[in-house]
């Protein structure tokens, strides 16, 4: 396949304009007509192109195993998922873990804890730890993307579970990887970060454990999650890299580590779409476009 670094920029551009997007949408529609669905092809599609928003939730559910590959099982399995959701909510209400005023993200957390047998005893009241905060952060973002509560809970649960199973081992290596690519792209900035002693303190939790939930607005975030859900955690490194590159001038002007961390933890929300587009381009440049064209 021809190496064309411009391609994804263009596809993102045409997606907005509507031409290229129409073509991609059609090929996705063809894939979605398969029975059973070809998960590999769906993953490849979603690695290469942004998912059209009208199909995003459906594709995510299939890729995360919430719905099985056989489309004629979707109604049955969807019904099971709904029952499971309702059973758990009901039990938590009866046991008074939740009530009508509990925020939905906290309901999801309790549900997740119940299913994973880590629901704390009622009397043991502890403030949420870091892991809970990661969960809540991802939940809040997912809630902005998904309207249906049943879908939302299942997507949060399976997104987080799949992320830990698939990428748990890679997580500790991502900061090193970021350092490597930064040395390729902008050694001066890397040097500045080293000199300031901020390299070890960058907001890796926000970037990698939370997959940018609470960092990027949902419209940009979902394009990153398309890649994560379809099988890449490397994309996270490139989004982080692109954030550093985009704010290079500001960062070069800060020398205090805490100032830099503060800025990076609350980046401006204006041009995040461009950051994500450039990050995806960089990711394709270094890691290659997935083969098997659609």
């Amino acid at each position, binding site marked *: 396949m021809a190496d064309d670094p411009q391609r994804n920029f263009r596809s993102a551009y045409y997606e907005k304009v509507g031409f290229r997007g129409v073509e991609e949408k059609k090929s996705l529609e063809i894939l979605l007509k398969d029975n059973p669905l070809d998960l590999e092809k769906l993953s490849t599609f979603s690695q290469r192109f942004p998912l059209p928003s009208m199909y995003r939730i459906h594709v995510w559910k299939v890729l995360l195993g919430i719905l099985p590959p056989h489309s004629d099982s979707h109604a049955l399995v969807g019904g099971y998922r709904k029952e499971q959701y309702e059973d758990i909510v009901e039990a938590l209400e*009866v046991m*008074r873990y939740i009530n009508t005023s509990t925020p939905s993200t906290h309901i999801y*957390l309790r549900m997740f804890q119940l299913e994973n047998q880590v629901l704390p005893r009622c009397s043991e009241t502890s403030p949420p730890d870091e892991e809970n905060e990661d969960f809540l952060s991802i939940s809040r973002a997912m809630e902005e993307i998904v309207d249906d509560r049943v879908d939302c809970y299942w997507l949060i649960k399976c997104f987080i579970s799949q992320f830990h199973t698939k990428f748990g081992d890679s997580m500790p290596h991502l900061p090193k990887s970021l350092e490597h690519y930064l040395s390729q792209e902008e050694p001066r900035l890397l040097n500045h970060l080293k000199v300031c002693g901020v390299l070890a303190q960058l907001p890796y939790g926000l970037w990698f454990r939370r997959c940018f939930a609470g960092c990027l607005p949902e419209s940009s975030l979902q394009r990153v999650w398309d890649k994560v859900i379809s099988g890449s955690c490397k994309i996270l490194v490139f989004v982080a890299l692109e954030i550093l590159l985009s704010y290079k001038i500001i960062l070069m002007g800060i020398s205090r580590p805490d100032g830099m961390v503060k800025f990076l933890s609350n980046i401006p929300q204006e041009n995040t779409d461009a950051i994500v587009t450039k990050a995806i381009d960089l990711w394709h440049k270094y890691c290659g476009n997935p083969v098997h064209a659609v």
Partner: protein
Amino acid sequence: FLEDVKCQAKAELQASDSRYRAQRRITQLLQTELLQLYSQVEVEAPTSSTATSSPPGGRADTIT
């Protein structure tokens, strides 16, 4: 032979389903029991229960 596989699959699914329904009935009984017990505790010791033991009503707030 294919019919055979399909039948077996169907039977397995039904078994899983009935296991679920049985468990669900148990849950419902326990839930009723619990609700009853909560109201009993509240009636019998309306003040001491809120003071000494975990108040049933307020638990959801602990995490916020």
